[in-house]
Structures are given as C-alpha cells and as structure tokens.
C-alpha cells in the first residue's frame, strides 16, 4: 500500500526561537493519523509545509503522490483542509461560501453539502462573520467533507467547540471516512479525542517528531513499573526509559516504552524486582512521552 503523506528530512526555521529539524513522517493510505503535540510544538507549521503554504528550507514532501510545493495545487484538489482558525470570507453567507468553494473543487458534491448543512443546522443566509465558533467549525467541516476528498487534513478541528458540537463534527467525519475510505490527518492536543478515532499516532514536540507508531502499540507499549532495588545505572535497558522517580526509599517508579513481559528477566539479572506493571491511558502516555523526550533533549544539549 502506498503512503498518503511522506515527509523526509524536513527543515524549517522561524527566527532564532523555533525550528523544525530533520522531520520524517509517513502516513499510510487509509489511516486515521492523529498528530499530537502541545501548543507551539510545530503541528500547524508542519501542516502548512505539507500543503505548500510555506516553503521548507530542506527536505522532501510528497502528498498523494505529488511533490510539494511544486505540485501543491494538484495535491490540494484531492485534499479537504480544515485550518485551526476560520479562513473563510466573513462577508459571504453560508450559501455563498459553499458556492465559492464548489467552483474550485471538481469533485465537490453539492447534494452532500446540502445534506450536511441541514444536519449541522446552518442557515443558508447566515453571514459567516455572524456564525458562532461552533457553527464556523461545522461550516469548514461541511466544505471539506463535501469535496469528497481522498485526504482530509484537519488542524485542531474541534478546538474550542462544546462537547455536543464536537461529537456531531466527529461523527460526520467518521461516517465520511467509513464511506469514502479516505485518509485522515488530524492534528490536536485533545488526546482522548484522538484515542477514540485514530489508528496511527505521531507525537510532535519542539519541532521534532518524537514518536510515530500504530495506536495499538502506543496504547499498550508505555507502562509504569514499580521497581524494588532499582539499579543506579540506566544503561543497556531492553526498553526505552522515559522517566524514573523515587516516591519511597526502596521503590522506584519507572515509565518505560516498548515494554514486553519477558523483560522482567532483565531486572532479575541486575538484582531488581518488578513489583507492579501499570497500563497508562493515552493522555498519561502522551505526557510521559513528552517528559522523556524533553529530559533526553536536555541531556543531549549539556
């Protein structure tokens, strides 16, 4: 199966404070790829680079087989994009916005747009400028879904929406993906939302992709271990040690990635004992992953 998005060695810099360094990312065709990361981690910039809205200083981007930015317009014809902020023209009505959008996308399905408009409860004659945040979010999603796109790129599509509207928007998205077998690239910092719908996860922090793996692996691979008589050295562990804390004198808490039950033997070899293995939920896993990555970065830079 080919990849819907393939990014290699991507580099981009904004002044002295922020840079995307050596970014490599692969989004398999048909996947629902959750792009996680704290605010300011570079998610939106990566999306803009991916869509040819900004120019990378190095690296290559291929979206739906088109090289970006050179063939960005060809890729964009097959992409439904929902940016993090309202990008539509404020002076147009809902109906005019649909008509405007439709003119540019040959695959746009006007019947589907009308069905979604009714489902989302958007008035045809409502001015975009007068729409609430939730309504604006629904309109952007309506336009993206009505394009019958092969790839949906959604940048924080439910950020700031109330739970009812968020559920409505997400269920429309899931329905579409089920029917059209489209690839979805969804950026968010709402971890639980990603957990419900995604089958791949990429985690971004400080302009770097610190993890990219199937959701199942992400969910089950990060554990909290209670270790008795833990070794001082952290070298040569068969797993990635994300963090270690000492809540009591003889017991340490380790958060590890890539854990397998047979790895208990390693502890026995170094004279330690694993007393308890706890599953972390996605949010905890995400936080621990970020913590581990930041500790590693700090150690590297020293």
């Amino acid at each position, binding site marked *: 199966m080919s990849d819907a998005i393939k990014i290699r060695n991507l580099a981009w810099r904004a002044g002295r404070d922020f840079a995307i360094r050596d970014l490599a990312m692969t989004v398999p065709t048909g996947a629902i790829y959750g792009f996680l990361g704290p605010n300011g981690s570079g998610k939106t910039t990566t999306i803009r680079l991916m869509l040819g809205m900004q120019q990378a200083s190095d690296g290559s981007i291929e979206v739906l087989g088109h090289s970006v930015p050179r063939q960005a*317009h060809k890729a*964009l014809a097959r992409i439904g994009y929902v940016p993090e902020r309202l990008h539509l023209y*404020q002076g147009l009505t809902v109906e005019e916005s649909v008509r405007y959008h439709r003119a540019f996308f040959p695959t746009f399905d006007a019947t589907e747009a009308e069905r979604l408009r009714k489902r989302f409860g958007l008035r045809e004659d409502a001015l975009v400028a007068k729409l609430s945040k939730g309504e604006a979010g629904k309109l952007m999603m309506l336009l993206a879904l009505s394009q019958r796109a092969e790839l949906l790129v959604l940048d924080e599509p439910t950020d700031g929406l109330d739970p009812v509207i968020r559920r409505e928007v997400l269920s429309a998205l899931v329905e579409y993906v089920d029917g059209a077998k489209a690839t979805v690239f969804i950026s968010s910092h709402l971890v639980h939302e990603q957990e419900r719908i995604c089958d791949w996860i990429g985690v971004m922090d400080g302009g770097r992709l610190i993890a990219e793996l199937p959701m199942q692996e992400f969910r089950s691979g990060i554990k909290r271990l209670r270790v008795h008589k833990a070794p001082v050295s952290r070298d040569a562990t068969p797993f990635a040690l994300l963090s270690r804390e000492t809540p009591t004198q003889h017991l340490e808490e380790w958060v590890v990635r890539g854990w397998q039950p047979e790895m208990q033997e390693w502890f026995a070899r170094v004279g330690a004992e694993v007393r308890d293995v706890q599953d972390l939920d996605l949010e905890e896993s995400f936080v621990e992953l970020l913590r581990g990555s930041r500790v590693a970065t700090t150690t590297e830079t020293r």
Partner: protein
Amino acid sequence: MFRQILFTQFRWTRTLLLLMAVFTFVVPTLSWNLGGNVFAAGLAPIAVMNGFSTVGPMLVLGAWTLGFLLVALPWGADSQSRHVYALSLPIPWSQYVAMRFGAGAITLLVPTLALWLGSWLVVAMIDMPPTLRAYPGLLALRFFLGTLLAYALSFLLQYLAGRRAAVVLLVLLVAVFGLGMGLSLANQHELLVRITLWFIDWPGPFSVFASEWRLIDV
C-alpha cells in the same frame, strides 16, 4: 471559478463602486455648474469647458483613490486569514492573483460607464456649435485607463510587498522626492525635466494623467 472570484470582488467593493459611480455620473453635471451661472448661461458648452478645469483634477484624484481601494479591500479580506483560504485552493498562486487582478479590472467598468452616461447626458442637452466637439467616450476611456494604471500599480505593490506595502510605498516616495531634490540641488534641472517628461509625456507611463481632462474640445 473566475465568476466566483468576480462575485467576491464585487461583494467586497460594491459600496465603493456605487459611490464612485454616483461621483463619476455627477461630475459632468458638476462641471457645468462650476463653469458659470447655469441659469444665466443656459446650456452653454463654455460652462462645461470651464468647469472641467476644476472637475478634471477631481476625476484624476478619484481614479487614484478607486484604483488603490479596489486592491486594498480584497487584499484585506484575504489577509484576515493570512491568505490561508486562497493558498489552500487547488490553483497556482499566480493564477489566483491573475484572476483577482482581472476581476478588479472588470469592476472598473462600473464607474467608467457611469462617467460615460453622465457625460453623454450633459452633451445631449448642450446645443453644440460646429467649432466644438464633445468626447464622452474618450473621456470615459481615459478615466478607465487612468484608474487601471493606478489599480495595476497598487496591485503590484500590494501583492509583491504584502504587509510591507505601506513601508515600500513610503520608501518609493522618499526615493522619488530625494532624487528630485538631489537633482535640483546639483543644478541638474534639465535632467530633472527630462526624467519628468519621460514619465508624463506620451507614451510615458503616466501620460494618461497629464494635460487637462476635457469633455468638450475643439
């Protein structure tokens, strides 16, 4: 596609276009009023000729204002979202810019037609002597070309310089003023005149604005 771009262009600038259409329609009548006592002079072509020495510069000013605003308003609508919408459309940026330019240029026809209509009405009411001739079509064409030039320059500046357009314009004005001052101080008056004439004499780029804009001439 272009129809929709044209639609948005008209949507954003319709108030401006309406005001300019009223202005250009009224200007020929105004010239007649300004050129003498309309009640005493009756429908005298001389009143229109005199009046145009006042309203001609108003038309020039109107052309520049219209040209500038016809770029600024759509640019403002696009830059509200930092051009994200325009950049996410599946057409090359150059094509989008060309269509925006074309749409704006087409809307210039609205005040141009109003000027032609206003001029034609005034001319229709004048008893024209055989020595004079009225040029409502040429006046409208001149207005169109002048507005188009102002629009094109504003468009070029805005789309090349982006958010720095105001700064670039200021730098350009300072450079032109500085050049003029420098040549004057260096007693290079002849060179200064030659450069100025190159711009405003036919076929110079600003020749459309040079000399008086007249509705009636010999």
